[in-house]
């Protein structure tokens, strides 16, 4: 049995009396393109922050590439790359300066850092902007730079929180190509996105978190077949076989998260609500 790239056991995070993430058991094997989905406020970003060592769990354990986050966070951080929600860039640096700084922090030698900085800036179409301060970059440019910084050290696991948000179609295509190339070379990509079409096109495996709890996990095929849900095995009876293949991820997502706490379908707004809208 191979060591999973990401493995959590009963991962829980509380903020005061609010439980943001509860008993999440997540397993992502090496080389997977993994989509982590959930409605707004479901606990996606909190989970990513825990998985990348930026937030301590209230309880439970995290193992990345076999290393325990508690025992060796520096070693895990060396092997992963992260594009966090806020991108965490230093606005008063230029793109070139930022990438050189990040490269050095990951222990790359000077020549490698300079070489990769040049390549990444060209690849991300930021080469013409490399002397501009990051604070003057557009949101999309900042996103591309954050991604460049996340991969400069060649991480084995890449965590991306909404990587395509605010990125133009051309750049998105470039990013997707880069991510797929990384997957082909054995890296693992863990991404969250609200654009379900992108997840469906890129990811081989998906997990859905809802109100802090993992409600589904498995390959796209398993989910289409109605399996992979919490407390439920994939089975032919779970969904109509004829329709299963044609169900989109959006259908599955809405089916799973479009229910209230008791599992009943969420109520449709009455006709008279917002009736003044044209």
């Amino acid at each position, binding site marked *: 049995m191979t060591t999973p790239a990401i493995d959590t056991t009963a991962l829980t995070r509380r*903020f*005061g*009396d*609010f439980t*943001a993430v509860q008993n999440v058991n997540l397993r992502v094997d090496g080389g997977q393109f993994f989509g982590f989905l959930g409605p707004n406020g479901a606990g996606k970003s909190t989970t990513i*922050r*825990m998985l*990348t*060592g*930026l*937030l*301590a769990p209230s309880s439970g354990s995290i193992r990345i590439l076999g290393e325990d986050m*508690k025992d*060796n*966070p*520096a*070693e895990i*951080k*060396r*092997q992963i790359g*992260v594009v*966090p929600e806020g991108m*965490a860039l*230093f*606005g*008063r*640096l*230029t793109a070139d*300066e930022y990438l050189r*700084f*990040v490269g*050095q*922090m*990951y*222990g*790359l*030698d000077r020549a*490698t850092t300079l*070489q*990769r900085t040049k*390549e*990444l800036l060209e*690849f991300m179409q930021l080469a013409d902007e490399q002397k501009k*301060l990051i*604070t003057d970059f557009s*949101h999309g440019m900042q996103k591309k730079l954050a991604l460049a910084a996340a*991969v400069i*050290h*060649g*991480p*084995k696991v890449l965590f991306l929180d909404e990587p395509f948000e605010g990125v133009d179609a051309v750049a998105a295509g470039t990013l997707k190509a*880069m991510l797929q*190339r*990384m997957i082909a*070379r*054995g*890296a693992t990509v863990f991404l969250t996105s609200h654009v379900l079409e992108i997840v469906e096109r890129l990811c081989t495996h998906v997990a859905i978190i809802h109100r802090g709890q993992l409600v589904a996990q498995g390959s796209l095929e398993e989910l289409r077949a109605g399996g992979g849900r919490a407390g439920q095995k994939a089975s032919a009876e779970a969904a109509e076989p004829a329709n299963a293949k044609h169900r989109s991820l959006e259908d599955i997502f809405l089916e799973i998260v479009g229910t209230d706490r008791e599992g009943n379908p969420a109520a449709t707004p009455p006709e008279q609500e917002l009736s003044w809208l044209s």
Partner: protein
Amino acid sequence: MAELAAGMNVPANARDIPARTQLLAVAWLRWRIFVNSMFRRRPTGTRQALGLAFAILLRLIVWPFLALTVVGPIVGSGFFAWMAIAEKHPQGLLPLFAGIALLWQFVAINGLSVAATVSNFDPSSLARFPLRFGRYLVLRTLIGLLTPSTIVGCLALLAAAVGIGLASLKLALPALVVLAVYALMNIFFTRMIGAWMERWLANRRFREIFGVLMALIAIGFQFLNFQRAPVHAPGTANSWLLNFLHGSSPYLHWLPPGFAAHAILRAAHPVEALAQFVGLLASTALFAAIFAIRLHKQFLGEHLSEGVSRRAPARSVARGRALAKETGAIAMAAPAQPGRPAFPPIVAACLRKEWLNLRGNVSQLVGMLTPLIFIVILNRAVFARHSTYFLPGAIAYALMGILAGLYNVFGADGLGVQVYLLAPIRLRDVIVAKNLMSLAMIVTEAALAWAVVTVLARSPIPLSTQISTVLWTVFVIAANLAVGTVRSIQAPRKFVPGQAQQRRGTPTNRTSGLLIMLVLLGSLVLQVPVTILSRTFQEQWLGAWIFGPLAAAAILAYAVLLRNAEQLILAHRDVFAEELCKV
């Protein structure tokens, strides 16, 4: 892309990353941030020359004062230490060291808020890189060492060591070693306090309490009152402060200043000196350990505001909905009420929004109260005997802070300013509402200051002074409203009330800051020459004659400005987007 294969050319283990590389990388990062902040977005042409001239002028004014502030404690420490040993008053070293530490910590803690305001770098963000805790601790200790408090504190201790050495050569080496450790103790103490403050300041309520405490401490210094009980005055009792210091000196022996002083003074008795030195080392280690414990939690991924329930946003959403109902929606959509409303609907809605903002801003309310307390204190001084100066002086002092707020009325709106730009409203109404709220605060503050002066004044305030002051106040308010409105539109700056870390101003903004100071202070101190002239020529109505027309002209200028505010804002939409809407 060939280089981007997973795991290539990366050190095999986090331990293989050289500490030197990471430490130098952070030092380089700090340097680049510093350099880039200096040269960002330089204005060109006339504006550049004007900005440069203002910057030089500002430095010429400020630097001599800063130099005096810095040189004073350093030279004083050296001289005092020399005197204590040479004049055979060795016990004087203990209060000297305690004083240096107190000043060091007070300046450092005060500086925390300033640093948070102007800093472009959050050192806790380094935790995301593959740093081992030891390196993170070293980095967090080193970052920010070049602060005024540390530099002046270290130089003051060095001067004290030199002073001791000059007075007694055999004490030179022990003094140098002990005071070096004492400096380290102070550094770790500052770091320890800073780290815990960072934890506490993450909580908005604590930030407000802290702001009030610092204001009270600043006010408290006014009561130290050395002048009324001079130390050397025969037959007079010492002030409460000196009594307190005298009474607490036995305890100081068991604190780091005592350890440091005795470790030097007992140099002739090695065992005793060593014991005191060990005490100093132990306290240094204790502060370093408490600092390290706090940092370790941060390093492992601590959420600073975890004490706050996530239910809070739900409440604020509910409050927001209520606010929307109370303000915009009702104001704009509700049918006309019988009777004439006090304000047009848009002005009323914006006014209510401003009021709700003010109501939740404790710091602002404290900022209004503090000057009034100072006026009470000023009354105890000789100032109060001259009501012709005391009344306008008190009002000028009380208004200074509030008037400064007129120069950035859109700052706290941030992204929300887009609502004004997108909504089908006259932007002039928004400015009117904001200025009305400011005016209400200014009038309230001025009235309170006036009341305090009236109650405390030791002689009746002449009618001519009262009328002159009213006209001068009207002039000051109208002039600052006019210039402030123009600057609010031309050079807005994002400001998040209650949040320590603000966006740093552009050079244009900083130049604008000097202009604001000139207009604001200029209009406020204009009363002084007029009052002097009035007294010199014994023309008690001179103030009224001068300020009457000035007030009318300022009101006219403000009215003209309001008429053109719409075009002015539309012409500066780009500035709004750049300064206020950027995330």
